[in-house]
């Protein structure tokens, strides 16, 4: 069964089953998105659980104009923003650090090493937050521009230009990696 479309045509016998079914279909998507935004496993653990609690509490407010997935990702993003604020996370990644050999703080690098992320995802995680979120929504979650605009509460034109810049940054940082590798 397709994960996106037909699921919301089905009926749950009780809210608990609905919740279970939502988690069955979208829990990994939600967890991953929380991680992409926070870059912190513990935060993703907490936030993803909170997302489904919120979904349970607020399902009536959910107007089925967007898919359940988009809705859950929107809740995830809101919770991640709160988390980042309360944890005083520095959201700024300087251009210089992207091109330098050590692309992130050593603690963060070490942490990402432990998670054994593929290289391309490391590049994604090093993007500044506003580029990172549009890029993963576009490339990983396959949302349309209109959906992304709706989810982030920004204009579609802004989505397009951010995606354009995000791709450029990705390409630059991947090129940097290649140069680094080909060095003797």
């Amino acid at each position, binding site marked *: 069964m397709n994960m996106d479309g037909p699921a919301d045509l*089905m009926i749950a016998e009780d809210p608990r*089953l609905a919740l279970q079914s939502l988690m069955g279909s979208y829990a990994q998507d939600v967890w991953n998105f929380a991680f992409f935004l926070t870059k912190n*496993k513990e935060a993703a653990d907490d936030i993803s659980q909170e997302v489904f609690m919120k979904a349970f509490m607020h399902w009536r407010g959910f107007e089925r104009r967007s898919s359940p997935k988009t809705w859950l990702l929107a809740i995830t993003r809101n919770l991640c923003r709160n988390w980042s604020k309360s944890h005083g996370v520095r959201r700024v990644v300087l251009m210089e650090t992207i091109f330098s050999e050590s692309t992130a703080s050593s603690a963060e690098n070490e942490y990402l090493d432990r998670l054994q992320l593929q290289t391309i995802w490391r590049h994604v995680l090093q993007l500044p937050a506003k580029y990172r979120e549009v890029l993963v929504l576009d490339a990983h979650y396959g949302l349309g521009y209109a959906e992304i605009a709706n989810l982030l509460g920004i204009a579609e034109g802004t989505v397009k230009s951010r995606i354009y810049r995000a791709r450029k940054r990705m390409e630059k940082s991947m090129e940097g990696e290649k140069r680094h590798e080909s060095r003797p």
Partner: protein
Amino acid sequence: MSQDHKPHWYEQLQTPPFDQPMFTPEMERAVLNRQQRVGTGNKRSPWLKRHSVIGAAAAAGVVLVLTIAGNVPGVNPFAGLGGGWITGGAASVWKPHSVYYEGEKPLIEAFPGGDFRAGQRAGCWWSLNVPYEQLKDSSIEIAATHRQSGLTVTELPPTAISRSMSYDGFTRVASDFALPLPGTWKFDVYIDGQKRGDLVFEVPDSDWNASPDFVYNDTVLTGNEMEMGFVSSGFTAGQPNKFLWHLFAGGEKSGSFRVDAVKKGTSDVITILNAELSGSGLHQTLPSTMQLPEAGLWRLLVYVGGQFYDSMVVEVKAPVEEENAE
């Protein structure tokens, strides 16, 4: 509308960065248990209450949705606005079945011990019709959900599949099958955190005779002879009572010691003691204070190290009212 050209490296971003599911069955259970607590207070959840108010409107919507979904048999109209996105016929989810089929082929079969009842360990074999070689690096986990109350418990904690579980063409694991409540239980079987199938059993109640007294070393204990018991002057509702627990047969257990309690005729399970066993001898004792809110018959379910150990039934006395005291 012109859809732009996606860069070739987008393909690599379609798969998530982690090669395992990061949202674990444990987290799912935590959410479900929190949801249950939110729902308590009313026996039925607030969702269902609202549905009955808007039932008529719901019914119309349901017909429409049913026409589209086309495969949900006998759904009652109030269920319609469950707002859920269940994949498959909801009512059939709870139909008892001891075999889970993948297509035509039985994938998982459960064999609980003959006369299984709530509050007692029946033991259960879980057969996966998958050769051991395919599962040898995997882990299995089984979660149980009680239909009537929504309670979720761990039937089998994450367990690495080992050579000893290997049989001719299939793999078999054992669990306690000691459910705290009578009723309908659904067992979700996870391999490496991914749900592979579920089985549903109707679990009958066991008897509610208060556990007897027995003598050990000139001391009178209440409980199950040479299994477990306590020395006490009994439970009086609504006030703390002192108990000296004795654990025998399980022997050499250590770790957490938890007592859950459920009153006869209800399905609210409350934890009344969370302690730590300090020794590791064959016979252990643990002083404790426990309290139960209401008079009547209660079943105490004892878990050691997170695993079901044994259960007993106690009669809780009503507190003596001051003015009635002679």
